[in-house]
């Protein structure tokens, strides 16, 4: 016994010694990895007090230069190569509780201190956070036997590390439903699904994917996602929340996705389409991405304040939605955790700050969309000007006719004397009053075109330079405009050179009281007389010009930069306060990321080029991570909105990088190709059944040992019900529609807007076409976690509440869809009730219903039927009208259909 124990001790000791030696041998050889080992400790234990805003004791671990600098005490916290004299190590190990760091918190573990000690010994090399380093080509792990493409190799590697195994492939029906919901956001159209179910070839699944990717419904599904990022809405937001016509941007997105516009081009057009050479209407409309910011029409609000709010929102959205970085912190102070400084925020803001939009009521600048005949006239006019005047003038005329820019909005007028900004929107004249418009470029201008509404005959307006009594450069007669509505007029101005403050005076003795408004001006465009005097066709072309200029045409808010004479200077805002303007800044990108490409201009176009530069570490990773989340339920890095040091570290960083590299280099930014790779993988095709063991080892399926199960999005819940009910309208594009919603949802003060239910097929359009009012968004969808779109939603948080059940159980829309679903079951399955229910189940799930489920549903039918058969009123109420379906059998089936649309497996993507 004794001897045996002794032997045991020797054996154990020997093993231990071997282990320790091996440990020292192997670990000593590999230097400490800053990003993997050191940075997590600094971030978790040090940075809250020693980084960004807080630099207690004058010590910060955010940047290497800061960490190696002398601290307030005069000592160096970190002396590279000399841990024993580094104050940091002394403080971490001190016995004195007043000295020991982290102050008043638990001491670092021995391992942690050892890592820091070794790191300092090895020279305290800094490394960048993974997401801020350019994407490199990644080695692919070896191929397991179950793999279909490289994604599986990466997944398999982690599964093995975690001692987990993959699941078998899901059955055909499950795959069909899963991939349809993922790629087109709704069940596949019947021709596609039937083809797949009947196709037994080895390419059946791939053919299915190709058909879905080619479906016109693909664009609608991915647009719904993008609208969250773009904070798209059909209203302007804030108190009045009035109408905004911006749905052409939604349609642009659908087309772009359907055409599989490369993601780099897709971004360039949305960020800076207006700055591309000779931008097309579509390129202008793409820029409405950043015109989805809110506009405040409440009387008395400061337009500059809300212009600034919109610009800040563009900055934050660009970072959060497109670069997975929470940049808003930097608005008030340097980033506490990530390498961005306070002034870099404002340098970045400067890219967006020099635009023409100014919180005006009309949402200027607007792109004016002409009909075909007008467009032909415009082409003719521009060709004439190119030939007879100059390409420069032709371009100016084109821009002005298409956008009414660059005009001065009178909301920027000041020095009002017996005049004022009516409803803080338009400069309004009263008798013997005047106002001022500052800094107007007058060189080479002899003509003024302006938009005016005048209420009293006999108004005389004069424009004076530099003083209300200064030289008169224009005298304008203002008679009443038609219906007192806005009109565009012109006036000659005396040639003057240079930049001047202009004073607009007004007299009108027909106004009885000094406090009555006589006229209002919206905008002023200083230009030259219509050029080409004496050239053939001049008079005719001038008429065309004016016809096009005043034409009442549909518009879309777009981005447009100020011309140089309207340039807006950008400042740092002290502590984030827009009224406290600090130093002047020029547009630039943060120092810690890639530089602006050499050929990139310092404007939004340059910014867009920088974003899609292959050296940009964030753009490709962010979109790959987002698409992965859409397909697999959770991002490879869960925090889509934050890939920075405070985001959740990716579960499969190498895979994220692998796909990001591939997207840029092999796929030339094709989103369809990337999605195809994801849904082709064996990882994606796995069955989603869990076992107790799986739940214990990997409850959240972080390692993809099985298929993911996710509740459908708000849009998918609606679209699926429309499709299975057989009522979904195939109509695409156009103004947003008004499906049924209960009364009393819209009650904005000071706005006469009402929800008028759409007729006919517009009642059954896909969710993406639903009218979106910011202050009162469509309630059935909001309940399923759709957001108001006041600001960008980088990730929807899925919830599970009883209010969701109430929508799909009781909302009249859903009852209506259930009715149509029941009619369809009857039509397709004949008279037998069990067959009808089975058919219904098959329509949704593509597979036969189990006996147990069928029994539960059949019992519900029997229950309902027994109630209906002797109750003609109830029957008619369920059917809704006394039509051919008004019989107890159908009514009972509607009750079953209503239940079926509420099944967990129906509102879950399995």
């Amino acid at each position, binding site marked *: 016994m004794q001897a045996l124990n002794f032997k045991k001790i020797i054996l154990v000791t020997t093993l231990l010694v071997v282990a320790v030696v091996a440990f020292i041998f192997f670990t000593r050889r590999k230097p400490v990895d800053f990003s993997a080992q050191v940075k997590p400790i600094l971030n978790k234990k040090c940075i*809250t007090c020693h980084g960004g805003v807080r630099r207690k004791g004058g010590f910060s671990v955010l940047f290497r230069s800061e960490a190696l600098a002398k601290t307030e005490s005069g000592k160096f916290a970190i002396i590279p190569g000399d841990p024993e004299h580094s104050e940091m190590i002394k403080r971490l190990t001190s016995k004195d509780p007043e000295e020991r760091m982290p102050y008043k918190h638990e001491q670092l573990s021995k391992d942690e201190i050892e890592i820091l000690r070794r790191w300092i010994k090895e020279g305290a090399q800094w490394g960048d956070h993974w997401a801020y380093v350019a994407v490199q080509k990644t080695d692919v792990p070896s191929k397991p036997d179950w793999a279909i493409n490289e994604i599986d190799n990466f997944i398999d590697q982690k599964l093995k590390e975690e001692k987990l195994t993959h699941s078998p492939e899901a059955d055909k029906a499950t795959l069909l439903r899963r991939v349809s919901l993922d790629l087109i956001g709704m069940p596949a159209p019947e021709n596609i699904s039937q083809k797949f179910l009947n196709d037994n070839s080895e390419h059946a699944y791939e053919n299915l994917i190709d058909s879905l990717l080619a479906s016109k419904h693909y664009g609608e599904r991915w647009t719904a996602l993008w609208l969250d990022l773009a904070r798209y809405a059909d209203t302007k*937001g*804030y*108190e009045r929340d009035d109408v905004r016509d911006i749905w052409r941007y939604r349609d642009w997105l659908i087309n772009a996705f359907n055409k599989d516009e490369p993601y780099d081009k897709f971004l360039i057009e949305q960020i800076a389409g207006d700055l591309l050479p000779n931008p097309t209407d579509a390129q202008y409309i793409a820029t409405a991405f950043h015109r989805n910011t809110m506009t405040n029409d409440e*009387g*008395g609000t400061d337009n500059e304040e809300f212009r600034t709010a919109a610009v800040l929102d563009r900055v934050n959205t660009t970072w959060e939605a497109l670069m997975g970085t929470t940049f*808003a912190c930097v608005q008030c102070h340097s*980033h506490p*955790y990530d390498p961005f400084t306070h002034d870099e925020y404002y340098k970045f803001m400067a890219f967006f700050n020099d635009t023409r939009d100014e919180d005006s009521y009309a949402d200027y600048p607007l792109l004016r969309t002409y009909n075909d005949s007008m467009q032909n006239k415009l082409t003719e006019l521009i060709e004439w000007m190119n030939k007879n005047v100059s390409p420069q003038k032709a371009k100016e005329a084109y821009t002005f006719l298409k956008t009414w820019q660059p005009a001065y909005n009178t909301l920027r007028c000041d020095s009002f004397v017996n005049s004022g900004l009516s409803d803080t929107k338009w400069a309004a004249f009263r008798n013997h009053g005047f106002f001022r418009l500052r800094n107007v470029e007058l060189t080479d201008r002899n003509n003024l075109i302006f938009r005016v509404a005048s209420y009293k005959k006999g108004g005389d307006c004069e424009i004076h330079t530099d003083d209300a009594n200064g030289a008169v450069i224009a005298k304008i007669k203002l008679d009443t405009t038609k219906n007192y509505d806005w009109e565009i007029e012109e006036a000659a101005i005396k040639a003057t050179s240079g930049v001047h403050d202009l004073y607009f005076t007004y007299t009108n003795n027909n106004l009885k009281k000094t*406090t009555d408004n006589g006229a209002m001006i919206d905008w002023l465009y200083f230009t030259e007389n219509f050029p080409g005097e004496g050239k053939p066709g001049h008079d005719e072309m001038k008429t065309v010009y004016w016809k096009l200029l005043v034409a009442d045409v549909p518009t879309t808010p777009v981005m447009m930069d100020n011309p140089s004479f309207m340039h807006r200077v950008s400042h740092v805002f002290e502590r984030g306060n827009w009224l406290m303007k600090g130093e002047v800044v020029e547009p630039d990108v943060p120092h810690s990321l890639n530089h602006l490409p050499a050929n990139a201009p310092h404007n939004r176009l340059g910014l867009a080029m920088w974003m899609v530069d292959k050296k940009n570490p964030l753009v490709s990773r962010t979109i790959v991570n987002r698409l992965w989340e859409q397909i697999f339920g959770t991002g490879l890095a*869960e925090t889509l*909105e*934050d890939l920075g040091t*405070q*985001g*959740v570290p990716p*579960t499969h960083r190498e895979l994220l990088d692998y796909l990001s590299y591939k997207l840029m280099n092999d796929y030339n930014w094709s989103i369809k190709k990337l999605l195809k790779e994801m849904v082709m993988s064996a990882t994606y095709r796995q069955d*989603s*059944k869990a076992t107790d063991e799986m*739940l214990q080892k990997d*409850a*959240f399926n972080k390692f993809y040992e099985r298929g993911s*199960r996710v509740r459908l999005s708000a849009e998918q819940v609606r679209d699926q019900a429309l499709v299975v009910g057989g009522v979904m309208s195939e109509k695409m594009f156009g103004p947003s529609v008004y499906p049924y919603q*209960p009364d*009393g949802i819209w*009650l*904005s*003060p000071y706005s006469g807007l009402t929800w008028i239910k759409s007729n006919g097929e517009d009642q059954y359009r896909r969710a993406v076409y639903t009218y979106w009012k*910011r*202050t009162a968004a469509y309630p059935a969808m*909001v309940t399923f976690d759709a957001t*108001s779109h006041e*600001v960008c939603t980088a990730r929807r*948080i899925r*919830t*599970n509440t*009883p*209010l969701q*059940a*109430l929508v799909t*159980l*009781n*909302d009249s829309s859903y*009852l209506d869809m259930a009715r149509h679903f029941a009619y369809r079951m009857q039509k397709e399955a004949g008279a037998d009730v069990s067959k009808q229910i089975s058919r219904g189940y098959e329509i949704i799930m593509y597979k036969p219903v*189990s006996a*147990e*489920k069928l029994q539960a549903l059949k*019992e*519900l039918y029997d*229950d309902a039927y027994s*109630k209906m058969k002797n109750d003609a009123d*109830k029957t*008619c*109420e*369920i059917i809704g009208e006394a039509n051919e379906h008004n019989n107890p059998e159908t009514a009972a089936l509607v*009750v079953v259909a*209503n*239940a079926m649309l509420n*099944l*967990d497996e129906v509102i879950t993507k399995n």
Partner: protein
Amino acid sequence: MTRDELNNQRLVKEANEKHLHFVTRRHFLKESAMGFGALALGSLLGGCHFGDSNSYAQTLFDPAHPLMPKLPMFPGKAKSVIYLHMAGAPSQLELFDYKPDLMKLDGQLCPQSLLEGKRFAFIRGVPKMLGPQAVFKQRGQSGAWISDNMPHLASIADELSFLKACSTDQFNHAPAQLLIHTGTPRLGRPSIGSWVTYGLGTENQNLPGFVVLTSGGRFPDAGKSVWGSGFLPSVYQGVQCRSEGDPVLFIKDPQGMDRDLRKASINAINQVNKEEYKEFKDPEILSRISQYEMAYKMQISVPDVMNINDEPQYIHEMYGTEPNKASFANNVLLARKLVEKGVRFVQLFDWGWDTHGTSPGDAVDIGLINKCRQIDKSITALILDLKQRGLLDETLVVWGGEFGRTPMQENRDGKQMMFKGRDHHTEAFTMWMAGGGIKKGFSYGETDEIGYSAVSGKVTPFDMQATILNQLGFDHEKFTYQFQGRPFRLTDVSGTVISDIIA
């Protein structure tokens, strides 16, 4: 359910919930040992701590049981809140802030010193001063000044704590309402009711935790954002209950679907779901099953609690309610019923207090008196009713607008106006609180002799929010949620608990 039964249920729930808390915690610990789950959720909840805040927020949001009752940071005196917001901003000068000196200045031109550097929504040029358009008396033991516009409320002056020197920095309705309810004049942040339901959950799972009731024919200017959940999960947004139409959207069974049939269909749904669970073992299926059961119960309990017809006659007389009509008084009675049933936060918005003097309806000597009549009886009844039910001590009642009114008469666009009105004013207004551990018969803060600005005891929206959270058991500086890379809190970066008014 009687009060006692509810209390018993509450105790059982608290015990269960402590257990759940423990289980959840253990679950998280286990997960973090494995490296992921806790982090994943932590990021949603405030995983990083800017400064020294403790890890309180870590376990607040459980996606499967988001409204499960939770304990506050420390035992709070109040368990629920009824917040009465008078949208449009009532005039303090005709209600609670008595300024005899202002009467002497009536009709005189406003001195330049009050106008220089100030921004007003509508006043232009030099307006005239406007004396108080109401008769004031001192009331009760406390001697609080309350005008004859509120005769009923005057009778319970000794129950109230007045904040006489409230101020804000927003002079337009929508931003000012947002500031007072969400801590910022911009959109996008959670409302106070959302914060509270996020932090405390709710005690009656058959009712929403945060209920909003509106009256006056319009929503508040800032729209639904004043009860929105901002960046918190949407489950915490206020649920608007309506006194006309469905009390909660989609709560009513479709026509022809009676309760038995609804029950049968939910049974069938859940039976199929159980079959599905056998196959997939996804815990989310189980929570779906319980949500459907809960939805069924809500369909009974919501219409039940929203029905005031069965209240005894004396209650109707006390509140001045008129069953089957939409009115503020009805909403006040509903607020009492909801709180009694365990709803955490009830928010009332009454529109129509914007007394500019452009018409009789918005004149401080005509329209305002009508508005006061619409609320006076019911809010008085609310305090008395809560008291007689022993609920006032644990229910915090808050009354106020989004800003105050000017001591000057409004002269919109520089013109003399037909009626007596006052413009928006940021520097002084009165709010009051009652119950929920607040001093009785107390007044805090003072304005100058014309009621233009605070001279002592100035209170900001943040101070108010900090105080409400404090009464519920939250340190407003530590009650945070991680969003856009930093922990956000209701009070942004300021706010001090108004300790003087705490009993």
